[in-house]
């Protein structure tokens, strides 16, 4: 089993600097401290460079002259400079410690915020492991980049510059000798940069893949165990980790090469300077103290120069991390702009195609039909219920040429009416329900709530009007009570909770170890599928929503529980406009009418009994007829 790396958006112009500049908005709030810290670091390095000068002065002056007072003075200077250096070093770290943790946290919070608001279709495409690796390892890389490479590229740059100036000032011939390798060094570094950034990106993507495998192996643990496949899972994991190891070794090869160059070239220059300097000292053109100070400075520059290799490597990694981070951040979130103001309150087109009365004519008077009028309305429009007008839908990422999932759905659920949606496995029922709360956007056509186009409602408002119970009942890490009450407004309390739990026949919640305060979800008590489904149902009904969308809400319940839930649910449905995806007659019977979804369209609407009699496809779906009757 392989995971598919999310292919990098191929930006041909991959300038690391330009990429890293995108971090500015996050760094901006802490810029004062960061700049002060960088300045402090430069200062500290300069102090460090002055120390050899004091040493030179001591060797050439007081020591040679046997001047005790001068020696004391020199030592005092050394001490003061040393203390200053220490304090500046500490100050730098103190200045950035909290702000940089803060930047990391802010970036993570921003990522989380954005991810929560990206379209559901985005999440369908991206394995959460890839998202997670962006939110953890990539952000840690960025924090480290801000803490070290960013500052030290600056500091070391300045240090090297000042050091070179000092050396040139001491003796310009020696200084030029030292500067010799600068050009080849810069050339090597630029070649290295390009190569390294590609490989760093690959490594980071592979970490994301690895994360995905780990996650899936845990989420699918029952399947892995049920088939005894943990060895092959482990093999798949091993393969991926081996690939990652290969990439990391490749990275190390590059790094090793650049280090070798960076270490060797300046040392060769120092060797040359040593020879030239010694000759000059011998000729008396140069004092021994100056040579000591010069070489001391050169040696002090060793670390700044050597470190450039790994600082650049870290910066490259930070640049790819930034790139990966913004791949997600650049995705367009669901906009909350109201799409077409003209649609607000617009009455449904009278001339629109009306397939809500198939064959059988007027609203069928089945046993459960309770036409109602004068109920509350969603927006400003009249009580018109939920309408689908020529709704077409294809997944935005579907390959071209594939037929749309929904192709001209027309459906009207009258206010207060409940309608069951029936269709074969994979016919698009769940997709249709996802369109109502705008988890996906219709490709063409429109959906109206009480005459108001759903795209004309702010999403938050739309979603507060429409409550959904999903096929997959997800509970969050919170108490049972909180999980249920998240379906209601803030004013809902224990009374609503108790009511919802009793409707969903979820009274077991009261008998949990801590009652409705018991923690559930990822980090809490794990509940059975049936229990979770009932809590999800309670969540959907707790807010007495105007519109209710239930996706196969009773699939995991046993017959007795199902019957009890149905009885209670009927009372709720009496004054709710509801769309219920159903697989079984028992669920269908909750609804006033049934619509059959087939081939991307609604092909029949009527009562269960009518369709059972008149519609062969429906009868087949509901009874498996054609083979044997259901006794």
């Amino acid at each position, binding site marked *: 089993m392989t995971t598919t790396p999310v292919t990098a958006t191929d930006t041909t112009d991959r300038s690391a600097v330009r990429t890293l500049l995108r971090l500015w908005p996050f760094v901006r709030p802490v810029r004062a401290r960061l700049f002060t810290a960088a300045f402090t670091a430069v200062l500290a390095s300069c102090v460090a460079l002055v120390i050899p000068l004091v040493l030179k002065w001591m060797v050439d002056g007081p020591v040679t002259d046997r001047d005790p007072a001068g020696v004391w003075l020199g030592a005092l200077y050394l001490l003061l400079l040393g203390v200053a250096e220490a304090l500046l070093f500490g100050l730098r770290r103190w200045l950035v410690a*909290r702000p940089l943790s803060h930047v990391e946290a802010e970036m993570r919070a921003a990522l989380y915020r954005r991810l929560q608001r990206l379209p559901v279709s985005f999440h369908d495409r991206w394995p959460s492991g890839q998202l997670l690796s962006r939110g953890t390892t990539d952000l840690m890389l960025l924090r480290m980049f801000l803490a070290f490479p960013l500052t030290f590229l600056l500091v070391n740059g300045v240090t090297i510059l000042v050091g070179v100036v000092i050396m040139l000032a001491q003796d310009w011939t020696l200084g030029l000798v030292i500067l010799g390798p600068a050009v080849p060094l810069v050339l090597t570094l630029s070649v290295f940069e390009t190569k390294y950034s590609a490989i760093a990106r690959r490594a980071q993507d592979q970490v994301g893949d690895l994360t995905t495998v780990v996650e899936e192996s845990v989420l699918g643990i029952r399947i892995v165990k049920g088939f005894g496949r943990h060895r092959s899972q482990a093999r798949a994991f091993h393969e991926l980790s081996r690939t990652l190891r290969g990439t990391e070794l490749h990275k190390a090869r590059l790094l090793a090469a650049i280090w070798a160059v960076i270490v060797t070239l300046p040392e060769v220059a120092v060797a040359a300077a040593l020879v030239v300097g010694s000759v000059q000292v011998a000729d008396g053109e140069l004092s021994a103290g100056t040579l000591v100070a010069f070489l001391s400075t050169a040696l002090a520059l060793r670390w700044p120069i050597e470190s450039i290799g790994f600082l650049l490597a870290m910066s490259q990694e930070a640049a790819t991390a930034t790139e990966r981070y913004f791949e997600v951040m650049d995705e367009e979130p669901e906009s909350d702009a109201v799409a077409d103001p003209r649609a607000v309150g617009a009455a449904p087109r009278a001339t629109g195609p009306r397939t809500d009365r198939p064959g059988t004519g007027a609203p069928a008077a089945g046993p459960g039909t309770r036409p109602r009028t004068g109920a509350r309305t969603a927006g400003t429009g009249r009580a018109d219920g939920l309408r689908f007008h020529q709704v077409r839908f294809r997944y935005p990422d579907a390959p071209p040429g594939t037929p749309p999932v929904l192709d001209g759905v027309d459906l009207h659920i009258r206010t207060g009416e409940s309608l069951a949606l029936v269709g074969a496995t994979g016919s698009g029922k769940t997709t249709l329900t996802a369109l109502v709360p705008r988890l996906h956007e219709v490709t063409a056509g429109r959906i109206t709530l009480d005459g108001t186009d759903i795209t004309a409602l702010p999403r938050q408002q739309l979603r507060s009007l429409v409550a959904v119970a999903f096929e997959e009942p997800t509970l969050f890490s919170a108490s049972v009570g909180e999980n249920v009450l998240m379906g209601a407004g803030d004013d809902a309390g224990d009374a609503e909770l108790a009511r919802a739990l009793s409707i969903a026949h979820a009274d077991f919640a009261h008998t949990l170890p801590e009652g409705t305060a018991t923690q559930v979800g990822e980090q809490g008590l794990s509940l059975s599928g049936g229990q979770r489904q009932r809590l999800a149902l309670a969540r959907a009904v707790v807010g007495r929503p105007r519109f209710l969308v239930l996706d196969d809400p009773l699939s995991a319940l046993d017959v007795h529980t199902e019957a009890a839930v149905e009885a209670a649910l009927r009372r709720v449905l009496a004054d709710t406009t509801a769309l219920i995806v159903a697989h079984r007659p028992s669920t269908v019977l909750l609804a006033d009418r049934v619509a059959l979804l087939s081939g991307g369209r609604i092909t029949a609407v009527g009562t269960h009994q009518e369709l059972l009699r008149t519609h062969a496809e429906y009868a087949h779906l509901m009874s498996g007829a054609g083979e044997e009757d*259901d006794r």
Partner: protein
Amino acid sequence: MTAPATTAPDTDGPDGRPPAPDDSFDRDVLPAPPGATAALLRSLLAPMRARVAVTSLLLLLQQAAVQAGPLLVAYALDRAVPALRDGDHGPLIAVGAGYLLCALAGGALQYAFIRAAARVNQDVLLDLRGRIFRHAQALSVDFHERYTSGRLISRSTTDVESLRELLSEGLQELVTVVLSFVYISAMLLWLDLGLGAVAVASFGPLYLLVRSYRRRAGQAYGRRSTAIAAVIVRFVETMNGIRPVRAFRREAVNDAGFAVLNHRHERANGDALLEMARYVTGSRLVANTAVAGLVLWGAYRVADGTLALGVLAAAVLYLRRLYDPIDRLGMFLNSYQSAAASLEKIAGLLAQVPTVPEPSVPRELPPLASDLPGREVVFDGVAFGYRTGGEVLPRFDLTIPAGQTVAVVGSTGAGKSTLAKLLARFYDPTAGRVLLDGTDLRDLAVPELRRGVVMVTQEAFLFSGTVADNIALGRPEATREEIERAAKAIGAHDFVAALPDGYDTDVRKRGGRISAGQRQLVSFARALLADPAVLILDEATSSLDIPGERAVQRAMGTVLKGRTAVVIAHRLSTVEIADRVLVMEGGRIVEDGSPADLTAGTGRFADLHRAWRESLA
């Protein structure tokens, strides 16, 4: 780090589920035996002992090459320059050549070292990642239900990452630091015993600083590791539940909840960085004071004539370098504390003993008695309860003859799933034995066990990869024909063929959306392909439409022929294919008989059956 145990609630979970998480799970501090962290690190490095030695040797040589610099400078000043004045070029040429050689050797050794070290690091990480993964996979289902996927991800990503940093940077830092301390101290002592001795004495206060830093930063990193795991858990939960998050407008509430966890991580992180700041200031102060003192003393001695000027110059150069590594020591300690905190967490995970261990001496199933694939299942005096007490299944005996299809019905929480999990060996019974053709399940190695028993659950999870990959999970060596045959038998072929790339459609890629019902069909095909002696179906058809369910049942009719099957279903339609029905309630089997007998009787099953018939209307 042990906290007083919170009042454990009466922990028998409802519905035969594991009890509420105990404190160590809750707070993400699984106990590791004392010394486990160090032992883990040792065991990771032990197989690489030789390579670690070679790597260290490379570094040693590299450091020797690099540290020779000041010595050569001293030599140049004290010998080569006077010699040059005397017209002797030899010493200077020697010094120049020596320095050049050292530079080249330093570079080459650096290259060799980085590569060698990377290989060691990557192999250690490969080993550790593999260990975590394999161990997690070997741990039982109830462990995973409590530990959460987020924490496991955290262990194998951020915590491994900490170790990676330690290995890739930290270890080099440490070796460099120790080597240069030793080397430079030796040089100083050799140059001048007095100066050297004073320099070495300054290590005392440095050691105290290091010790205090280790203690304080260690705590901060421990908190950080826990905090990031909590962040990850929340992150994963949100991303996997994105639909309900959206539909119930949880975004703002989640932002707030996430902010709390994120902030906790931020604080711990900041605390650790501040400790580092404190350490750096302290150690620099000690170092610079020592340098000033030594120079003062040295200068006096030069003035006295007891110390050569060249020696003082070299000593001063060495002195500066002696304390250079203290920053790097700080970095090492930093990585070390961070990695130690992470390793402790990993060790805690690895210390978890699988509650369903593999046998040390596996046995094989006896050869099949007939040509039919089924085997006999016996629950022999089996009882099951969770460790924390609370009996889920009281002691019972049950024999399912080879080839029989048994339907298990009963309300939620009756213990049906627990029975199935015992048979699938997701759990081991607290008493008694589960036998497959007379062999205790506990004596079967996993591959043998899964040739015997396979379970299809209601959660039809699809892994990344193609549809074919997902079906082939049942039997990885299966050919494409076999895969398609299984899919056809179960009625999944039509929808798979209609996907953009058919069986090669990536389930996460473009157009690869697969509905819940279709996922269940894939799981079925998987089970068919696995071809086990005993097949357990735990509500495996809940999301199928009726024709789909019928198709599956028809397929089951042929597939199950001769196979032993245990079918758990809420829908009594499944019962139609059963030879025998067990009705469970409160963990006990209350009715047992053929469907016809039970339906005709007056027991619970007759009630259920009537209710179900009515529901079909």
